Every structure is written in structure tokens, then in C-alpha cells.
């Protein structure tokens, strides 16, 4: 039977899977929104962009909602500390995410150039802000954030919004933006009509290079500029979920120590390079699906790199390292992890099956003629 340790490990993998699912599925919607002002000049071109993502972004966004729900259910302490600690940043991300659905709907209801330009700008913001903030949040999670617990596990957070905007976290935010632009670009190259597709491919090729440059910079920064954390006491992998039962020390270079101890983990950063470079090659060769797949692989690589370098930490505390949240002491109870695992095993394949059905129905490019002929029913 699945013991507590294995369940925690599975849920760590599932957390990664859901975040990667969000990045791959909703990432191209966010990226397309970010590219909207740059790849589409006329209203019709913009409507090509919007209708490329229009029928699917709503379903894709559920990856984020499910991701947050899964953190709540499987890692409640992480959910409590991260969401309240990053309070104002979360509010900004939330405002941007609220803006997105209404921008889609509201834009298309009125044919007025000023109105539409306004909502186009809102869409650009609604793609850029979450991409940036989620990257910044991951950067801070790697560095550690200033929180502590009292002995009833009441959490106090002693940072503010400006504290989140440190150079390493901003670098991570830019990595996130670059990968989302690359991904949105490959999607539009695959899905949109010319000339939008060609411009999007160029943007994606450029973003792939920028992503690699920023990713290397992030790695160097992590090696020389970020103190990692390591557990210095005994921490049973099946013990109670109470983050106050261990000791943790800070250490230079500890953030990359997993890659030294377990060289196979280098697959993750390698995947970023392989994915981004092959996306460039496939875009040049006009192999849209391969380029999109390669871009998705690069996203997987970026997120896996972050997760593996932190493991077993989920959210270290810079204020009181002993209070850091790890895979082994901030999960739900064994029953909840097992119950939720069963729910995922039953429902996630069904979700993937009907998602595939929807994409099959909607296959093919969004053409100029299509948006012209359906100006009243489409976005």
C-alpha cells in the first residue's frame, strides 16, 4: 500500500505536473495576449489572434484554478504562507486574471476602435502581469521569504511587496516572461493565418534565445548570489506535518547542490536548451506542431529545474530557516493525500480526453476569411 512518504513524493510530482500543465496550456494564451500588440496590426489581425485562443483559454485557465486548489488540498501550509505572504503580488495577478475574461468578451461587443484598443491593452496587461508575477514568486520561493510561526502555527510574514522585487526574483520573472512569449509565439505560428503567424514565429525565435540567455544568467546567479538551504537535523519522511520539528541551515551553493548529488537531474536544464533550440529550428522549417512541442518541453525543463533545485524544500523561510516548509512536513494528512490521488487518477485522464476532443474539433488555422465571415459571432 502507498505509505505517507511515497504519497508526499507523488503529490510533489503532481504539484509540478499541474504547474507545468498550467504553463503549457494556459501559457500560450498568456503569451498570445502578450504578443497581441506586436504581431497584429489591424483589427482583423487582432481578431485572428483572439480567435486562435478564444475557444480554449477558458478551459486552459482551469489548470491554474486546479493548481491552486491542489496546493490548498495537498499542501495547505504552503497555500496559507505563499498566498498571504505574497499578498499584494497575488492581488495584482488576480486583477490581471480577472481582466482577461472580461477583456475578451467586452472587446468584441462594440465595434469602436478606441474601445477595442483599450481592451487590447488590457489583454496585453492580463498576459504580462501574471507571467511576470508567477516567475517572481518562484524566484522568491527559491531564495526564501521572511516568515515565521508561533507554536500554534500562526504565521507572521515580515516582508512587503518591494521585498519581493529583488534582482534574483526579477530575473526569474523575466525568464518566465521569455518562455511564455516563446510559447505563445509558437502557438500563433501554428494556429494563426499569415501575416500574424510569420511575425509570431519571429518573436518566438527571438524569445527562445532570450530565454536561454536569461536561464544561464539565472543559473550563475543561483550559484554565486543565492544562499540555499539544507536540513541539518533528522526529519522523518512520514512524520507529522508540523514544520517546527526540524533544523535548517543556510549554505552558499546549496541551491544547486541537488544537481551535484544527483547528476541525472541535469536532464531538466538540458531540456530547456534542447527544447528552446529545437523550437527555433522547427519554426524556421515551418513544422508548427514540432515547434510547439519543443517549446512545451522547454517550459517543462524550466519548471522542473526550479523544483528539483529546491527539493525537498517547498518554501524556505529566510527569517527563521527552521520554519521552512518542506515536502516532508507541510502536506495534508495521509488520508487526504490518498483520497485526492484517487480523484486525480480517476478524473485527470477524463479531462485530458475531452480536452483532446475539443482541440480536434477546433483544428485548423484561424483564417482571415473565417474572422471576416463571422464578425458577429466570434471575438
Amino acid at each position, binding site marked *: 500500500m502507498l505509505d505517507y512518504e511515497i504519497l508526499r513524493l507523488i503529490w510533489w510530482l503532481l504539484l509540478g505536473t499541474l504547474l507545468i500543465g498550467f504553463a503549457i496550456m494556459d501559457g500560450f494564451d498568456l503569451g498570445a495576449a502578450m504578443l497581441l500588440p506586436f504581431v497584429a*496590426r*489591424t*483589427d*482583423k489581425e*487582432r481578431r485572428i489572434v483572439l480567435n486562435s485562443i478564444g*475557444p480554449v483559454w*477558458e*478551459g486552459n485557465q*482551469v489548470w491554474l*484554478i*486546479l493548481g*491552486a*486548489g*491542489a*496546493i*490548498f*488540498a*495537498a499542501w*495547505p501550509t504552503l*497555500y*496559507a504562507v505563499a*498566498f*498571504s505572504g505574497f*499578498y499584494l503580488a*497575488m*492581488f495584482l495577478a*488576480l486583477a490581471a*486574471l480577472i481582466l*482577461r475574461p*472580461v477583456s*475578451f*468578451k467586452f472587446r468584441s*461587443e*462594440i465595434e469602436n*476602435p478606441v474601445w*477595442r*484598443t483599450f481592451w*487590447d*491593452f488590457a489583454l496585453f496587461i492580463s498576459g504580462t502581469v501574471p507571467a511576470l508575477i508567477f516567475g517572481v514568486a518562484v524566484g522568491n520561493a527559491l531564495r526564501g521569504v521572511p516568515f515565521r510561526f508561533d*507554536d500554534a*502555527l500562526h*504565521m507572521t510574514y515580515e516582508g512587503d511587496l518591494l521585498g519581493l522585487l529583488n534582482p534574483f526574483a526579477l530575473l526569474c520573472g523575466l525568464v518566465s516572461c521569455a518562455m511564455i512569449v516563446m510559447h505563445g509565439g509558437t502557438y500563433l505560428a501554428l494556429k494563426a493565418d499569415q501575416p500574424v503567424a510569420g511575425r509570431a514565429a519571429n518573436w518566438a525565435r527571438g524569445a527562445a534565445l532570450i530565454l536561454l540567455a536569461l536561464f544561464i544568467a539565472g543559473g550563475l546567479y543561483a550559484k554565486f548570489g543565492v544562499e540555499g538551504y539544507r536540513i541539518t537535523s533528522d526529519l522523518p519522511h512520514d512524520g507529522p506535518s*508540523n514544520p517546527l520539528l526540524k533544523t535548517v541551515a543556510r549554505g552558499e551553493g546549496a541551491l544547486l547542490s541537488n544537481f551535484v548529488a544527483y547528476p541525472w537531474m541535469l536532464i531538466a536544464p538540458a531540456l530547456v536548451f534542447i527544447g528552446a533550440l529545437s523550437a527555433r529550428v522547427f519554426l524556421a522549417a515551418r513544422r508548427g506542431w514540432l515547434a510547439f512541442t519543443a517549446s512545451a518541453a522547454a517550459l517543462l525543463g524550466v519548471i522542473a529545474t526550479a523544483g528539483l533545485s529546491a527539493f525537498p524544500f517547498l518554501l524556505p523561510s529566510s527569517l527563521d530557516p527552521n520554519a521552512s516548509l518542506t515536502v516532508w512536513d507541510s502536506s*495534508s*494528512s495521509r*488520508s*487526504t493525500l490518498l*483520497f*485526492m490521488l484517487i*480523484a*486525480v487518477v480517476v*478524473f485527470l485522464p477524463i*479531462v485530458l480526453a*475531452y480536452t483532446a476532443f*475539443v482541440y480536434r474539433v*477546433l483544428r485548423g488555422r484561424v483564417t482571415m476569411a473565417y474572422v471576416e465571415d*463571422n464578425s*458577429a*459571432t*466570434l471575438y
Partner: protein
Amino acid sequence: MSTAMDVVQLSRLQFGLTAMYHFLFVPLTLGLSILLGIMESVYVMTGKEVWRQATKFWGVLFGINFAMGVATGITMEFQFGMNWAYYSHYVGDIFGAPLAIEGLMAFFLEATFVGLFFFGWDRLSKETHLGVTWLVAIGSNLSALWILIANGWMLNPVGAHFNPDTMRMEVTDFGAIIFNIVAQEKFVHTVSAGYVTGAMFVASVSAIYLLLGKHIEIARRSMTVALSFGLASALSVVVLGDASGYTATENQRMKIASVEAMWETEPPPAAFTVFGLPNQATHRTDDALRIPWVLGLITTHSLDEKVPGITELVQRNEDHILSGLLAYSALEKLRADRNDANARAQLDQYMSDIGFALLLKQFRPDIENATDAEITKAAWGTVPDVALLFWAFRIMVGLGFFFILLFGFAFYLISIGCLLRVRWLLWVLAFALPLPWIAAESGWIVAEVGRQPWVVEGVLPTFLAVSGISTSNVLVTLFGFIGFYTALLLVDIFLMIKAIRLGPGHNVPQPRARELPAASGAE
């Protein structure tokens, strides 16, 4: 302590406002999705184009509303962690699961297929598109089911226990959480209220068209569907909103006593107060107009069972606080020495009341030393705002009966073919448009204000549940939400009215629509 209380009050205000705002859109999504399914089913069965036009027209309004519902729903999920961090830690083991399953089982379904509903008309066969429409409706309703399982647990926290090793509540029985009687009754009651809202929306807009003599064919058919569906739903919402769930727990009993402003226990069967002026300070209800027997009958379904009054429940809660203190002191001993067997036995014995002891934390951190006066004050603090509950409940119930009469009478007239001639009734239908929303929001006030001072009844007081964040941060987001949401609501209503004015038929393909000039910022 005052800033901490400010954070509590502001966080409550923000959660209450954003939740009530979210619930402007949810009931319409619930009701309209089913009505779209019904209308499109008629189209597929009869093949009459007018039904397809009707489905598409109401679909446009559904789409505007759906976008707002989705957008404001994300706020709700994020806010538990943002503003209620201790709550999230303390009960996340239980409360997180239904939220995650909602995403997995329901929201994915709804959100994935809603795109095909709008974009799939020409890509799918009639039958497949109908299937897509019904999947959206099923997804919406399943979504409500899981959210109300989560919410029902806050009202009746079954299937969980306190774990002293992790200092939080943990699951003992998922079956009890899912089949929680309070959650199941709330689900039926809430989705029925959503159906009433959807039906009233379609009936009111159709009434306006009929009064103006526009779009008669679609309006007449939509009206028939809306009135029959509305009548069934209005009956369901009243009959199944029946108060039997209120006897499930001590705190639910407190809620019913407060709703009735019944300060003292009466000999059974208790009387029902139709009108009165509840006074929280004197513990009396002035100028009360009372009907004998009715309250006892509707809450206990018997003539000889007592309905406890507020004063009696307060006394019982005082006892709960005292035994909660025994559990609390045992917990303190256990944390000093994890192997103290006596302390563990004492904790196990009084565990279920430990939440009541936490009520004293509003007065002092060292609650073992609480005075008798503080304990009495904490016990009286378990009485929610009686006057607010009293009136919110009466508004909800009054409107509920009005909906039955209105739908019933209009349905009778349309089935004998003369509704269109009774113009005053069409006017009533048109002006009744906002009433289901008022009823639904009043219902939430009864449910959630009636839960106070608890965030999870008998388990965790609301004032302990907040995040350790600053007052200024909460103020920023509170005003941010108010400003942002107000602007969005204005645009939303403007677009709804515009779509209604354009009416059905606007949303058919118009080949070669005129070119729109390039937007200025596009270089």
C-alpha cells in the same frame, strides 16, 4: 489588539463583498445553462430554426455573464490563502479537497466545453452540439455541488478531528463530508435558487419584448419555457429550503433561534414570529406578531419537540466553553510532554469543544485564566446579529412565495393562451427581474452571518482565522476590489442591455462585415 481586529473586520468585509458580487453571476449561470439545454433540446427534437435562434440569443447573454462569473470566482479561491491563512492551515486538510475536486471534476468540464458552445455551431452535428450544451450545464451544477460541500462543512463540520501533532483539523471520514446533510440540502436549495434566477431573467426579458411587440416568436416560446421551469424551481427552492437542516448542530439551532428572534425556549410547538423588532441589547423582540405552532412544525416536524431559544443555547455554549478549556489545558500539557497519558485522555474526552475555548482568545492570550465574566461574554458572543438575520430571512422567504405565485399565475395564463393580453402581468414580470438576486443574497446573509462568530461552527472562531497581514494591505485590496468590480459591473450591465436591445437575430453570421480601421497603437 485593535489593528488585529481591524484586519478581521476588513477581511470579513472584503470576503463578504467579493462573495456577494461573485454570486450575482453564479445563479444566472446555473439557471441559464439549463434553460439553454432545454431550448436546444427542443430545437434538436423539432428541427425548428426559431429554437436555435432562441438558444443562440440567450447564449450571448449567458456568455457575458459567464465571463464575469469565472473572473470573480478566481478571487474566491485565492482569498482563502490571501486573507484567511490560519483558516487555510487549520482546516485545509478537509476544506481544500472539495475545492480541488471542483476544479478537476466540474470546472474543467464547464470551461472546456463553453468554448465549443460558442465556436462549435458550424463544426459539430446538431446532436453533438446539444451534448456540449448539456455538458456545460452539468459542469456548472457539479461545480456548485462541490463548493457547497466545502461550504456545508463550515456549517456542520463532520468527519474531522483535531490533531495535536500538527495543530490542525484533519479528515477522519470523507464519506461524512461528502454526504453531509447540511451540504446536500444547501446544494438543492442553492441550485434551485439559481434556476429561479435564470427563469426570471428569461421571463423578464421576454416580457419586455412582448410589451414592445418585438421578437414575438422567440419571446413567446422563451416565456413558456421560463415560466414552467421557473414554477418548478420556485416550488423546489421553498419546499427543499425547509429548515430541517437547521437542527443538525447546536450552532445551526442558534441560527434558527436568531432567525426567529426567539430569545427564550417556548413550550412546544413554538410560535412563528411574522413581524417584530429584535433588540440584541435587551434580548427581546418588540412589537412581535406571532402565529402559534408554525415554527415548531417547520423545524422539528412534530408537535412535542422543543425548539431551544437563544438564552438556553447561550447557557449550553457556556458549558461548551468550560469543557473546551479542559481540552485546551490538556493540550498545553501535552505539548510540554508528548507522553503525558493523562493529558491525552483528557484531551480526547473534551476534544470536540476545544473550538469553544478558542472564543476566549479575543479577550486574552492565556485563556486558562479567563474570568467568569469573560466566559459569559464569550457565550453571549455566540449569538449572531439577530435583527439582520430576522429581516434577511423574511425578505428571502417572502420573495420565495411571491415567485411561486407569480410563476404559477403566469404559467396558468400562458397555458390557456392569454398571457399576452394581460399586459399588467407582463409589466410585473419585467419589473421582477432583480428580485431573485435580492432573495439569493439575503439567503447568503442568513447562512453566513448566521454562522458568526464562527468561521467553522464550533471549531474555529472567525477572528482567529485571518492572515498575519497589515491593515493597510487589506485596505489596498479592499478598495482595489471595490473600484475594479464596480467598473466591471457597470460595463457588464451596459453590454447586457445593449445585447438585449439588439435582440435575437443580431448574432447570425454577416458575410463580409465592414473593415474596422487599424487601432492606433499597433505600429
